[in-house]
């Protein structure tokens, strides 16, 4: 394990318990976000990793080595550190800022110059910026330098404490892309403190939700969205985001209508026609005795073949579009909508018919995901329920 935190506790002088029994294992190459309300202990936890704070009890191991046994100055030189206030030295050029730690490590001048060029290229700034001073760069450019400065001495682990909090949304997004790229391309490990759920969802391989010094939940972004551990996490994610995330976490099985109207291949056309009439639908799904989906017949097929064919099996369409009940709405919605189908049969992993999804249901989900549901009350009267009810009343099966 790359970084292990075991039974960490931190009580500040004066008795404030900031972190309580914190346990976490981080693998190399992970992007772990600590998220939580202000005062939940994120910064405190992070600062114990580079010994800017010492824990009251518990152990932290980096590459299996207890960091309390490592000289703190040496430890910090191998861990990147980026804070919200940027922390570039205003009296040093960009070059000197970037090579600050390499200089402490006594790299040769050539190697430092080369590294400075490499780093400025990495953040896509012109090379002559190396001789400028921080005040001559925009806030976003400065923080780009802050990010690569944390990597200039080949640090494998980078700690970031709300590094982009003060930036405007567009710059922030560009920097998020930068750090995500550094993690994915260079295999750097990030521990990243934020209070912005969008940021955490976008960047993390795992999210650590904290409250009052405790870990509430540790999971992937998908896992957090799919199964928020409690109301606190739900609120942190926010109702809008949960709705927006619905297509990516909801399965077809969760939204389908159960007990679809179906017949079997052996039935006569007369029986099938009566069933359509009774249920007021214009098509029937066809399954075998075991419930396996075989095909579909429509009222027009019955009408056209009524005199020549005798059983449903003779005239049913075998080549039909269906979806798996376990597949995600996100992955199927486009295919379904593009085909213009009104209803789609849903099968389980054994190809047994288990339900149908209606186009109206999908419209609802897409609508909510795109618009949120702030205006649900008005909108639902006009659009949602009108369509929702259609298959139940008349149907076209």
């Amino acid at each position, binding site marked *: 394990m790359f970084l292990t935190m075991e039974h960490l506790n931190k009580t500040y002088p004066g008795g404030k318990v900031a972190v309580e029994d914190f346990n976490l294992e981080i693998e190399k190459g992970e992007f772990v976000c600590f998220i939580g309300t202000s005062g939940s202990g994120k910064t405190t936890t992070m600062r114990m990793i*580079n010994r*800017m704070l010492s824990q009251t009890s518990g152990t932290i191991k980096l590459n299996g080595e207890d960091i309390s046994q490592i000289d703190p*100055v*040496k*430890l*910090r*030189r191998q861990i990147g*550190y980026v*804070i*919200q*206030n*940027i*922390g*570039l*030295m*205003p*009296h040093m050029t960009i070059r000197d800022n970037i090579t*600050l*730690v390499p200089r*402490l490590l006594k790299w040769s001048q050539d190697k430092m110059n080369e590294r400075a060029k490499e780093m400025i290229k990495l953040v896509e700034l012109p090379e002559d910026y190396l*001789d*400028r*001073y*921080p*005040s*001559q760069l925009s806030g976003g450019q400065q923080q780009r330098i802050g990010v690569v*400065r*944390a990597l200039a001495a080949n640090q494998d682990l980078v*700690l970031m404490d709300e590094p982009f909090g003060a930036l405007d949304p567009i710059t922030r997004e560009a920097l998020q892309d930068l750090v995500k790229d550094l993690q994915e391309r260079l295999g750097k490990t990030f521990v990243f403190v934020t209070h912005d759920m969008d940021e955490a969802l976008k960047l993390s391989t795992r999210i650590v939700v904290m409250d009052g010094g405790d870990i509430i939940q540790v999971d992937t972004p998908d896992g957090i969205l799919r199964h928020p551990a409690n109301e606190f996490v739900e609120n942190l994610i926010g109702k809008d985001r949960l709705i927006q995330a619905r297509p990516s976490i909801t399965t077809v099985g969760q939204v389908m209508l159960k007990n679809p109207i179906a017949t079997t291949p052996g039935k006569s056309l007369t029986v099938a026609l009566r069933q359509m009439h009774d249920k007021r639908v214009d098509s029937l799904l066809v399954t075998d005795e075991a419930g396996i989906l075989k095909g579909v017949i429509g009222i027009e097929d019955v009408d056209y073949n009524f005199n020549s064919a005798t059983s449903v099996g003779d005239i049913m369409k075998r080549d039909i579009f269906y979806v798996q009940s376990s597949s995600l709405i996100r992955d199927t919605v486009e295919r379904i909508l593009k085909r213009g189908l009104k209803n789609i049969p849903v099968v389980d992993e054994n190809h047994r018919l288990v339900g149908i999804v209606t186009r109206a249901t999908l419209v609802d989900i897409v609508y909510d995901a795109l618009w949120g549901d702030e205006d649900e009350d008005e909108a639902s009267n006009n659009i949602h329920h009108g369509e929702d009810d259609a298959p139940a009343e008349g149907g076209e099966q």
Partner: protein
Amino acid sequence: MITFLQNYGGQLLLKTWQHLYISAFSLFLGVIVAVPIGILLTRAKPIANTVMAIASMLQTIPAMALLALMIPFFGIGAIPAIVALFIYSLLPILRNTYLGMKDVEPALIDAAKGMGLTNWQSIIKVEVPMAAPVIMAGIRLSATYVIAWAALASYIGAGGLGDFIFNGLNLYRTDLILGGSIPVIILALIVDWLLGKLEAAVTPKTTQS
């Protein structure tokens, strides 16, 4: 004016040199004592207020009394004068050094420490350069005080331009009073101007030239 220079030109040069020498020596001592103490105080904040209070108290002793107090310890001459002026120079330098260091943005010090600078490296590479203008302002202020009060040093036999002034006062000779005080003023202005240049030089660059 011309006659004054003809009569006292040689003496004037000598006294000015003495004056400058006493002032510079006291100020030099003040800087090498007060700057390091001011820096150390930022690492020992609990005692900072006590030390600052003592320095302020020394500052309130009337200059004449302080000079007189030196006599039992150091006799008369340049040395007691230098010691007394040194004590006077301490407070402005000490206070500005401490405040200048304390006002360095905590985020910078945090970033420096977090990147792996030792305490000493943080002081030398980050805090002192950032505090340099404030420290220099303290030194300039002390320099002006010291040059002005060095005129009193003549009282305990240290020489300097004060000799003209005291003689003038005793003999009711305006030309001697002016001949002593005008050079003191000019000296103070020149030194302040020079230290101003130095201040600009030590103020770290934050933009390209």
